[in-house]
């Protein structure tokens, strides 16, 4: 059995990249798809295996290496799923995992915080994020400059993050493991 490269700490890699891979996979599969957790674990398992077998030679950064594995696994998953879905439409499964519950809890806190924002911030968030208008169109609707829209979006974000961090900890935080960066 090959030995892992001495400069790759696999525990650190898993701790650091679990939330990153999970985020990318969830975006690709959709948040309602419970398979994202399995896929994330598979990507990390493949990473460990490839590092141990010497396939990761350090030519690229480890993040780039993991990104490639992640994208390939997502492509395979979607291809396989489409083949199955043509014969057997999938029923939704009940997702159950600490990460999911943690995410839902944060969104719940954040949703409550959104409701407490002053109207001038709430209406910018509504047009820009809820209705997904462009920054220029949002500005036109509100009679503001586009730069002013960006300012309000950023300020609203800061207010929300502060409000939620007071009650629920960092939003993107995640990993159950100890990420230091």
């Amino acid at each position, binding site marked *: 059995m090959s030995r892992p490269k001495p400069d790759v700490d696999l525990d650190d890699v898993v701790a*650091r*990249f679990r*939330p*990153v891979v999970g*985020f*990318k996979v*969830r*975006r*690709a599969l*959709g*948040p*309602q798809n419970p398979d994202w957790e399995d896929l994330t674990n598979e990507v990390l398992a493949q990473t460990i295996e490839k590092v141990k077998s010497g396939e990761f030679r350090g030519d690229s*950064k480890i*993040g*780039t290496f*993991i*990104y490639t594995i*992640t*994208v390939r696994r*997502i*492509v395979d998953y*979607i*291809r396989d799923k*489409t083949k199955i*879905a*043509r014969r057997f439409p999938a029923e939704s499964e009940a997702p159950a995992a600490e990460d999911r519950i943690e*995410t839902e809890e*944060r*969104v719940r806190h*954040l*949703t409550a*915080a*959104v409701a407490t924002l002053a*109207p001038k911030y*709430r*209406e910018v*968030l*509504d*047009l*820009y*994020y*809820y*209705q*997904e*208008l462009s920054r220029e*169109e949002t500005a*036109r*609707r*509100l*009679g503001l400059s586009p730069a002013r829209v960006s300012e309000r*979006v950023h300020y609203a*974000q800061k207010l*929300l*993050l502060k409000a939620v961090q007071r009650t629920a900890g*960092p*939003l*993107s935080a*995640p990993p159950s493991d100890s*990420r230091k*960066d």
Partner: protein
Amino acid sequence: MPHPEYEAMIDAYLLGRLSEEETERFERHYFECPECFRETADRAAMIEAVKAAGPAPVRTREANMPLPSGFRPFSLAWVTIGAVLVLLAVSLLFIPRASRPPDFPDGGIRSVRGETLTLTGPVGTIKETPKELVWVPVEGATEYTVVLEGIKPVWTAATRETSIKIPPEIAARMSPGKIYTWRVKAYAAGGALAAASARKSFLIAR
């Protein structure tokens, strides 16, 4: 602190407005950059919460225009409108919660509240690159936006119709053997989101 170059791309990435190449560049970057990833994940959570919170009352510029002369403060017209609004608010308290439209996923990272929108086609495996996308009309919708994606966004467009032709230059970028997904959102007059579809996938046969 996130890198300024990439921070400027976060919203566009999360709202599916980056090109395929830009998306890949951005994703490769956040796989390497903890600060940019954290900012992206935080922003995604905020967008999800904004979606979950539902639409906010928006005071558009039009709403701030001068009022007609009959609507001076404390006029009879205002008193009448006030009374009607109070009655309306009280009556709303007695509307069962179940009558609210359901939450449904739009296939991205968030959900929206509203009516669902049904996509007609293409779906499943198709023999050749589709020429158009077709969906079922939504009552009251005045505009539809369409997002077509491979692994990354391929095309976004808007139309007043319930179908849209795929331009030849976009079709030329689509390849046999690959899977594409698409979704549609319907907007009512004034730009309010009225309905959104789930994602539908199709595979162009080799």
